[in-house]
């Protein structure tokens, strides 16, 4: 609640957190999901671009109007933004938020599958394990993150399984289509008989099975009947296949494969993707860039550079972001990726688009979220400063027009020890 309290208080600099005061809202609590945010710098991430001194009216959880000088209908709460930035709620990246609680404790982790027999199970769907009550959800949300691509992570097979898009509002179910997660290259070679060449061999066989070119009762089948049906859906274009891959030669093979099989793909990580920027742009294959990766961390990443995002964008590749380490607990770091990509040549607007509109489009949910336009869900963030700069923070998050409590287990811990120290 500190965010709202701060917005409502008259003097910015006079404001100090106090536990009791933090619960006060200015005026009566208006009907939830109706709000007028007034005088913001509205980054619509749409064709309208960024609007100075603009208002956003939300009715019934949906954006009703965007523009200057909107008037508040009766009963609608008004929030004065004082010119501060308003953006769509941000993309948290490809994470395991809600399917892992403590990474090192296996009993709390549901993100990967490790079946000894028949390890290749595209039908595995991690969204079924999603726990909207995870403490990771509010921790991410208070940082301005509103939705995530819940991804299956590599376990017993290089085909990890399916994930979906979760809004971080506490709702239990994914929105939009599922995506299939796949890993290629050195990191997956151990799962494919010690060679990345076998990844194409196995993939081809799975495709043949899914397309009915292999008898269902073949003793050599890799897939279960459910797996064949699932993969057939992706081959028919029902969802995107998101491929974690770094080496340029692997990305080249991937592009050929996708073209041949007519599947929609996206690249995640993509350390050397910039080397194939033209090809990726021609095929309109989006890349979730690890924008802090510049080390030859493996022989698959020798070409890693901080200019990856900028070069891809310049070539016309849709660019979003994805972290490599501690993606879930530290999902908030994704803003730093975007900001650093901007510091290395990506236009600021593309940095923000990479955290909003682009991932929404790539994941098939842009009809609902990812931009500030009438008819879209009111998933919004009012920022204390530049949203791509780690020097600033999210003041207030609305999801579906509902002001989210700006509290998490971490703010509770903070406030306990902040108070304790003061008492002493």
């Amino acid at each position: 609640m500190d965010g709202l309290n701060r917005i409502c208080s008259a003097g910015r600099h006079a404001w100090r957190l106090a536990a009791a005061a933090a619960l006060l809202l200015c005026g009566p609590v208006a009907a939830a999901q109706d709000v007028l945010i007034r005088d913001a710098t509205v980054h619509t991430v749409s064709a309208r671009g960024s609007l100075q001194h603009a208002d956003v009216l939300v009715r019934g959880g949906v954006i009703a109007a965007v523009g200057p000088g909107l008037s508040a209908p009766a009963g609608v709460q008004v929030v004065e933004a004082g010119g501060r930035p308003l953006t769509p709620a941000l993309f948290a990246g490809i994470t395991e938020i809600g399917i892992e609680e403590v990474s090192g404790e296996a009993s709390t982790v549901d993100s990967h599958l490790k079946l000894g027999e028949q390890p290749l199970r595209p039908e595995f769907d991690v969204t079924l394990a999603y726990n909207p009550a995870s403490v990771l959800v509010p921790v991410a949300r208070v940082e301005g993150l509103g939705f995530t691509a819940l991804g299956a992570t590599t376990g017993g097979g290089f085909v990890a399984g399916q994930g979906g898009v979760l809004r971080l509002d506490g709702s239990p179910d994914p929105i939009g289509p599922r995506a299939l997660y796949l890993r290629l290259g050195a990191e997956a070679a151990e799962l494919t008989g010690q060679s990345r060449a076998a990844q194409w061999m196995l993939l081809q066989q799975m495709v043949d099975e899914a397309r009915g070119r292999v008898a269902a009762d073949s003793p050599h089948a890799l897939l279960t009947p459910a797996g064949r049906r699932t993969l057939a859906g992706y081959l028919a274009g029902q969802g995107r296949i998101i491929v974690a891959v770094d080496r340029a030669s692997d990305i080249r093979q991937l592009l050929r494969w996708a073209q041949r099989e007519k599947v929609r793909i996206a690249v995640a990580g993509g350390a050397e993707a910039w080397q194939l920027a033209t090809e990726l742009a021609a095929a309109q294959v989006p890349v979730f860039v690890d924008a802090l990766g510049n080390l030859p961390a493996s022989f698959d990443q020798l070409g890693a550079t901080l200019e990856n995002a900028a070069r891809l964008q310049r070539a016309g590749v849709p660019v979003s972001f994805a972290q490599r380490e501690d993606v879930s607990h530290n999902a908030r770091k994704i803003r730093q990726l975007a900001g650093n990509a901007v510091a290395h040549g990506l236009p600021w607007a593309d940095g923000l688009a990479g955290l909003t509109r682009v991932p929404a489009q790539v994941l098939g949910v842009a009809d609902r979220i990812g931009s500030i336009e009438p008819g879209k869900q009111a998933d919004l963030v009012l920022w204390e400063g530049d949203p791509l700069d780690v020097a600033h923070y999210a003041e207030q998050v609305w999801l579906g027009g509902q002001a989210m409590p700006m509290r998490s287990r971490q703010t509770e811990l903070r406030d306990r020890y902040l108070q304790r120290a003061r008492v002493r």
Partner: protein
Amino acid sequence: MHHLVRAGLAVALLSAVSSQAVGASRFLQDPYPSTYRPQPSEAVLIHNATVLTGTGQRLDDADVLLRDGRIEAVGRGLQAGAEVRRVDAHGRWVTPGLIDVHSHLGVYPSPGVSAHSDGNEMTAPVTANVWAEHSVWPQDPGFAEALAGGVTSMQVLPGSANLVGGRGVTLKNVPTTTYQAMKFPGAPWGLKMACGENPKRVYGGKGTAPATRMGNVAGYRAAFIDASEYIAKNSPKPAPRKRWFGGGDGSDSSGDSGGKRDLKLDTLAGAIQGDIRVHIHCYRADEMATMLDLADEFGFKVAAFHHGVEAYKLADRLAAEGVCGALWADWWGFKMEAFDGIAENIALVDRPANSCAVVHSDSPEGIQRLNQEAAKAVAAARRAGMDEIPPERAITWLTHNAARALGIEGQTGSLEAGKMADVVVWNGNPFSSYALADQVFIDGHRYYDRTVPGTKPVSDFRLGQEVQ
């Protein structure tokens, strides 16, 4: 285990106690001495900058004069002769070179292939005998990237698999062929210890001690008991009374120097005597308190707790006891002992009087952005309604306080006359996602200039990779 015994024997046979060990602790002999020499440098006047001194001061429109590898003067309107090269820093910020107290560059280098996994001697829970410097690969491409992030010095530590992981080494971040040529002259060694989950997981998982936190503490105590006894045996004996029949005192142990030299106990003894600085990987507040008691029990001092995601729960005590907290801005939850991490940790540890908050990386990515880590902590503090932390304060976390933790604050970590000219010129306020180091000086020599292509050092490993 077999290999360890064999290696230990070989070492014992080869080692010879030199006669150097008079006065200063004999546990500090360095047969692998620093060969670092400052590179030639021209005198430089960085003028019209926003200067953060590292001692808590901010000077606007100020100048910094570097000469002969040292900082000659800091202030407004400095005069310098025509021979002095001028760097117009209008709109730019100048800080001391950044110092990372917790790096594994060189010991866990890029590429992270199995042959490069040299950071954890995971063969016994107490390996105080190993020295991280003997694992450092100077061609790690991460050093140059850290330099571009403004890092001029760092402590390279062994990993945290062991209760006592070994000696850490402080390096100047210069491109060289040997680690000795990076070794920070006169910097004390660090001793790496680890609390909590890692040692008990690594050894408990093998069915050997320690398997529990109580096993961890028993392990530290046994090691320090051995070291205390070793010190007693190796302390100079009172001169024997002269007897009429001459010679020694006639006892069996006449002339006994305390037995053969033991590399493990050398290091632990050096720590007890305060010559080797103790750096402890420790997450939980209660375990940090246990380690402070352990330090009292054996008479050593803890220089810093590293990672300390719960340090905010113990901030007053850390400050009161002069112990630094070397911390991340936002990592948490990857294991149970990291579950209570909060983004305000650094700011809360910084708050008490006489505190020593340090931003550390433990990461080849994080070391490139210590300034951004600090920016996150400043923003989190503002969000929490704490007093605004000004840049001149935040910079101490990556410079002066880090130097204090390493025991090199007399030489570097602040922009003061006479200190090493380890200096960064930033393109603006360093506490931002958009901040980039424009120029980095080490002992006055400009090792990196962002505006001049080709000045960033290129590791041998990187050569020719792009040739098609």
